[in-house]
């Protein structure tokens, strides 16, 4: 069976590379949020929200590790959800009595930008790596490799003798007679 496939010089496509970049970004941001949440809250005028920042940091670490793993797709969707959460949290800092309101706005713009990249990468990764949910399933019921129905092939290679060093059962001959068990000294 031949199927046309686009040839690529590397198995890594742009989406895979972007996901990797986002993974490192996630790790960096996560470490920062975990290590110095005060730095973040102070610059946003949102003192008191340190616990939230730490939680976001932990989440970034997780999605970062995931995005750098073998299968980054779920982590990238995780980042998209995380971006939405972050935007909601930031929005609470937009109140007119926050003197750092402009910083909050700038942060929201950055998160929005990242969210866009995350979403695009997540979509591209899904297309590249995930089996379509209701995709076509090939029928390989004719691919037996046998000249006759499989049932008729049972034991066709019984001329083969298990080599001595691979015997694991009782050798390949017929099963031996059951070993008698003597229950008492008077048993014969």
């Amino acid at each position, binding site marked *: *069976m*031949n*199927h046309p*496939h*686009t*040839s*690529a*010089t*590397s*198995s*890594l496509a742009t989406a*895979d590379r972007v996901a990797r970049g986002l993974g490192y970004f996630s790790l960096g941001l996560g470490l920062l949020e975990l290590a110095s949440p005060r730095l973040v809250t102070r610059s946003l005028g949102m003192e008191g929200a340190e616990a939230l920042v730490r939680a976001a940091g932990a989440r970034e670490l997780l999605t970062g*590790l*995931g995005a750098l*793993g*073998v299968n980054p797709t779920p982590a990238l969707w995780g980042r998209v959800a995380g971006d939405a959460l972050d935007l909601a949290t930031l929005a609470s800092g937009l109140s007119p009595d926050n003197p750092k309101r402009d910083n909050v706005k700038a942060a929201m713009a950055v998160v929005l930008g990242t969210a866009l990249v995350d979403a695009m990468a997540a979509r591209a990764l899904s297309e*590249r*790596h*995930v*089996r379509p949910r209701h995709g*076509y*399933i*090939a*029928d*390989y*019921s*004719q*691919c*037996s*490799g*046998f*000249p006759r129905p*499989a*049932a008729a*092939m*049972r*034991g*066709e*290679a*019984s001329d*083969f003798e*298990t*080599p001595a*060093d*691979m*015997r*694991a*059962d*009782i*050798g*390949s001959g017929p*099963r031996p007679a059951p070993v008698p068990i003597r229950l008492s000294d008077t048993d014969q």
Partner: protein
Amino acid sequence: MKALCWHGKNDIRYDTVPDPSIEDARDAIVKVSSCAICGSDLHLYDHFIPGMEHGDVMGHEFMGEVVEVGADTKRLKVGDRVVVPFTIVCGECEQCRRGNFSVCERSNRNKALGDKAFGHATAGLFGYTHLTGGYAGGQAEYVRVPFADTTHVKVPDSLSDEQVLFLGDIFPTGWQAVVQCDIQPTDTVAIWGAGPVGQFCVRSAVLLGARQVVCIDRVPERLSMAAAGGAITIDFDEESVLERLEELTHGKGPEKCIDAVGLEAHATRSLDSMYDRAKQAVMLETDRPHVLREMIYVCRPAGVLSVPGVYGGLVDKLPFGALMNKGLTLRTGQTHVRRWTDDLLRRIEEGQIDPSFVITHTVGLEQGPDMYRVFRDKLDNCIKVVLKP
């Protein structure tokens, strides 16, 4: 020449690399006519096996025509058509003389590295980690074959590449996995994994006369191919593997269990799989032994576990108490390919089996990088990819 090269996790490239040349009088150079991507290549692609280096040429399933031989090569001549076993064998050491070719004592040129990793080095392998010699592989236009006199299988022109290519790995691998179960006509054999290796396990178990062959996976087209070969199938996404196996064996468990999955086992709705994934992500565990755990648990006491599936390092939470108390026999190993190939070639010639059934994709070598993805991600109903340089 052109070749598929490893450049890190998820990164296989179609590169231009220097042509191989004779380095030792016992070498031969083979011009590759067909090669394939194996599940073992996926462990390298996913970077679960240590000891890979940037630019390593991939591939250990290949065949072709001998185009050059070293001065001490006696049994091969230019023009011979050969399949090359993935385990390189000297043919003379103590292990080779016993037929334990995959632990040949001489073919691993990085013996010190292998000794350090595994206690004692194992045979040299093509296109694999530097722990096994770091020999350039066969997903390329040309390959240098060390110990060429003993590391080849001559194949007749009457058979196509597709019919004999898998003599280099997956057919003997499935065969040995079943042989070391020492099949009895009363046996139920449970095979985890319906990938190419699992498929050959199914066929081998049928040919060797098992009463009942069961194959477990979750990829529908793979299960349908396993059924075509005579297996009862279990979809582990849909049903409980343990319950079904108990049912099929009247509560006694299968006598023989085969792990044709290896260290990247998936699991559905199971606690242990989440545990493994978390530990693997933070590098506290290298391998995910879900299938091993399941086999140890479900196997009939005094039964046999056969593990062709590849493991690379450390596993965690293995129920060794069950293994010990049930008196199970555990058999493992890279395949002693050359030990089985004469017999298997005869079976192909006699028409007992045609190994080409497993091929779903045939493309040019330049499409190799993309086919790694298609094969690993189980896209496009892919089961086995053959590449033509």
